[in-house]
């Protein structure tokens, strides 16, 4: 893949890659940094199927990052939280934040494979690309996606109603 071609892929895929990474590391800036690094690596490695390659590398980096984060958690306790852009903490912002947390919790209830397929689809990959990346048969992607979507919605609704019950 030429740098020009990669530049085009960057234009069309960068946001999707950030979104994909964000749902793994749950930190916007970290997701952007990892996405940048994935593209930087693509420039070096010049993979044939750059788009799929990017998502594979990104998934690996996110996994390594999560491991490192776990290792460094004791240090993280030293750090104050990432500066919140919505310090005003309006009701709307709080609601958005709790929605995000609920979706995150729901995603984490999915099996790793279901979650991966769902996130890859949401990042704009085709069934073929998802199959290549996950090792699933192309014919199994639809079934996996239908299961993942159903469980996501169910887990989210369960979490929401549970929260409401808990609130009384």
């Amino acid at each position, binding site marked *: 893949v030429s740098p020009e071609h990669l530049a085009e892929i960057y234009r069309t895929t960068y946001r999707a890659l950030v979104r994909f990474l964000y749902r793994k590391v749950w930190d916007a800036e970290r997701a952007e940094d990892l996405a940048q690094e994935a593209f*930087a690596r693509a*420039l070096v490695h010049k993979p044939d199927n750059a788009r799929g390659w990017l998502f594979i590398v990104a998934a690996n980096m996110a996994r390594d990052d999560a491991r490192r984060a776990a290792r460094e958690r004791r240090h993280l306790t030293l750090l104050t939280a990432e500066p919140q852009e919505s310090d005003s903490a309006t009701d709307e912002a709080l609601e958005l934040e709790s929605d995000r947390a609920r*979706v995150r919790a729901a995603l984490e209830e999915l099996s790793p494979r279901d979650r991966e397929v769902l996130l890859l689809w949401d990042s704009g990959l085709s069934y073929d690309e998802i199959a290549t990346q996950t090792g699933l048969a192309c014919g199994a992607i639809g079934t*996996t996606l239908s299961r993942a979507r159903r469980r996501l919605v169910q887990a989210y609704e369960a979490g929401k109603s549970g929260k409401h019950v808990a609130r009384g």
Partner: protein
Amino acid sequence: MSHVDDGTLHAYLDGELAPAEAQGVDAHLAQCPGCRERLEEERALITRAGELLALAAPPDREVPPFRAGDVKPAARLWWQVRQPLAWAATIVLALGIGTYLGRGFEELREPETAPDAEPVRPQALETPLTSERAQRESRVKVTGAVRKRTAAQPAGPAPAAANRADYVAQRAEASSAQSAPNAAPAPQAGFVSPEGEHDVLRGPLISIDTARALLGRDPLALPGAPIRAVYRARQPGYSAVVIVEQSLDSGTVIEVVNKRASPMALDAVVVAAAPAARADSMRAPERAPQAGERASDSQAALNRRRAALPLASAKAADRTSSGLFLEIRGPVSQDSLAALRRLLQPLRP
């Protein structure tokens, strides 16, 4: 055709069925109300799942420009260190072997300051010693010899005249703020001081091996963070200064400044912010104590330093076996810097 299973319905709705398959589904749906109903349910499910995922999307930010020319892999991420308001964070960690050397060291120290200004020839600094203790002891013994040798080398070694012109004076006020009587000399003529507010004079790029030779030991750096560059540098009061520039992530560059403080082989390590970020990182009140700290390596100065910088004194107690001065500055909170400092490791060959 038999009823359409969920997976096929989703593939159909996702537009991922082969044309022939899609036609088969169309044909079945046309004659099967049950499957049509399920189709609408699955459509709603797909929409709902998409909405939920959209809730968990990162804030929409501008896509940074793509730089095809920059093939250098971005920094390996360490952890979240961005702390815009913590730019001023400065930690001076005095962990000098001067502490170990005690009073006798101080007496020897005084007359040495002037020669200190000149960098010591790398070969002279190479003292292949196996243990820190042995190093310290031998340094005490050879103090006189080292002093003579240094004094007998008026000319600086590596930084030739041309290179000197390239030096960037980064904290000139250091010399004026010197508080100790044996203040180190101000940056010499020929050294460029464009910024006029830094004390580290950055010099040419060097290799890690050269850095090792200059320091007489392995330079310290943050493990896991890619090294962007290693520079020779100079600073009043130090005979050898090596800057290891490292990326914490693509947006955060720090400098680990390894300092050999004198022919007595005091060492110091400084983690500084990237130059671009440094400008607004330090305020005068915070810089002042640092400037004073450089004035002397004596025990007395060490104590003054500790008194001047509460955080530094806290860290000073955190002495490592390597006997180093550590000063940490960066675009992160003081706590983060403390965490970074603890992770510094010698760069093994």
